[in-house]
């Protein structure tokens, strides 16, 4: 009799727990749909925001001109307001893909095809980093070049440390604009070649780390602990301190906004974001965060020093998770509304790896590193926006899987 009662009680507890889990899952799915709808609405509102007046930038690039006329090619001719309406040169809008999306530069050239003025029309870079590039006088270095010169970083154009994407985009947009203007002048412009595939240390490293993470995640892998530490240290040194290219919320905003860079020159971006989405969708595992996120590795190093532990906080777990998700969603919505992925980027990765950040970021970094001595990965657990994005993919994956199994009951039986 007692055994029967105990068994009934256990069954009740299990069914209660199951119904609680189902209820939570339902709420999560409803909110996932609401989040997608919100992103869609904000996307439409953001796109309807008026684009910046191009003419204003054109005038600023060549202030010595009095009148501008837009030609069929989209290039502006610049003239002096004298009797002969002397042609002074041309202004063209050059475009290239930066860290957060397209970067446009108004490029003024004289009639020799030499650049005599530049004005950034708009950009999608993280404001602090963009300011850093501006202060480094990169524009001054570009002004004075000819359309026929090399605009490659390291070949006459110096990259600004930690802001390679922005530096390269500025140089490429300037080249693009100067060549369009030179073409209008009638100068011989070499046909722009299709960008060549650029594979360097970051691309090879991230590919290798994904493979290691994928294999290491498998059950029964003998040297899991050692390989995971090796993978984390490589991530920390190569993706963190050497290149400062960890995945950020801006990557996802860029994806949602459709600012997809040429794969030949931005293979790293595709490998990182594509690899993460693919592995989580296909395998429900997240090798990036657990195996080679450079900032995760930095926290684990601190944890190894201080003997950090995992604290579950069962009473507060749910609202803390929703707070983290709310922050991530707010960042994505802002990035999409302003059509600027850089606006969404609030992470403190660059603050650690390039020693550059605002006062707020420095303060959060100090807090995170101190708490990481005692609590395992506090940034990842409570603050990082990538974690909620991965969770979102998992929720959708599970939902689709359930729907699929409902349609094809055989699949369920087979699995």
């Amino acid at each position: 009799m007692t055994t029967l009662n105990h068994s009934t009680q256990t069954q009740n507890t299990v069914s209660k727990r199951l119904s609680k889990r189902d209820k939570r899952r339902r709420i999560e799915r409803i909110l996932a749909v609401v989040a997608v709808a919100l992103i869609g609405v904000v996307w439409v509102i953001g796109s309807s925001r008026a684009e910046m007046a191009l003419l204003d930038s054109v005038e600023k690039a060549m202030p010595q001109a009095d009148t501008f006329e837009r030609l069929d090619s989209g290039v502006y001719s610049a003239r002096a307001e004298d009797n002969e309406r002397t042609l002074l040169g041309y202004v063209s809008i050059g475009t290239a893909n930066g860290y957060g999306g397209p970067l446009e530069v108004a490029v003024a050239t004289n009639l020799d095809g030499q650049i005599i003025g530049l004005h950034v029309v708009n950009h999608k870079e993280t404001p602090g980093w963009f300011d850093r590039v501006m202060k480094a006088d990169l524009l001054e270095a570009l002004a004075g070049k000819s359309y026929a010169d090399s605009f490659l970083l390291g070949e006459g154009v110096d990259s600004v440390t930690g802001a390679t994407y922005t530096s390269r985009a500025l140089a490429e947009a300037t080249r693009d604009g100067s060549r369009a203007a030179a073409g209008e002048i009638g100068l011989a412009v070499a046909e722009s070649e299709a960008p060549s595939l650029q594979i360097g240390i970051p691309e090879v490293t991230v590919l290798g780390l994904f493979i290691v993470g994928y294999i290491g995640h498998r059950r029964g892998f003998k040297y899991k602990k050692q390989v995971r530490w090796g993978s984390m240290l490589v991530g920390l040194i190569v993706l963190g301190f050497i290149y400062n290219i960890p995945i950020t919320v801006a990557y996802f905003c860029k994806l949602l906004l459709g600012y997809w860079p040429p794969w030949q020159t931005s293979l790293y971006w595709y490998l990182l974001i594509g690899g993460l989405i693919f592995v989580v969708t296909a395998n429900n595992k997240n090798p990036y965060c657990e195996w080679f996120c450079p900032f995760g590795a930095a926290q684990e190093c601190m944890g190894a020093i201080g003997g950090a532990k995992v604290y579950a906080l069962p009473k507060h777990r749910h609202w803390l998770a929703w707070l983290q998700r709310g922050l991530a969603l707010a960042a994505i919505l802002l990035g999409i509304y302003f059509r600027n992925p850089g606006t969404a980027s609030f992470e403190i990765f660059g603050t650690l790896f390039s020693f550059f950040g605002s006062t707020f970021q420095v303060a959060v970094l100090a807090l995170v590193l101190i708490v990481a001595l005692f609590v395992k990965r506090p940034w990842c657990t409570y603050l990082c926006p990538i974690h909620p994005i991965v969770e979102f993919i998992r929720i959708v994956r599970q939902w689709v899987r359930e729907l699929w199994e409902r349609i094809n009951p055989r699949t369920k039986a087979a699995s």
Partner: protein
Amino acid sequence: MGKNQSKNKGRFIEVVILAFVVVSISLLALQLGTNVTDTLEQSESSSDGYVVPDNPLATLYPSAPASANDPGGSTTEDN
């Protein structure tokens, strides 16, 4: 006694983590606000990302062409 101590320690850690989360999220929200302000300033600023050399390079000006699409012709030097 030991149980109480461990309970107190658990509560202390809980409070520390909650304080850490609240303070950090507030600071990160402020960072997002700063990003928004910077983005708005950037779109309104007239001098940001703007370079015209102090000494413009020698420029060859042709005599006024017949049309804007026909920039050919003889040239005169300026600067």
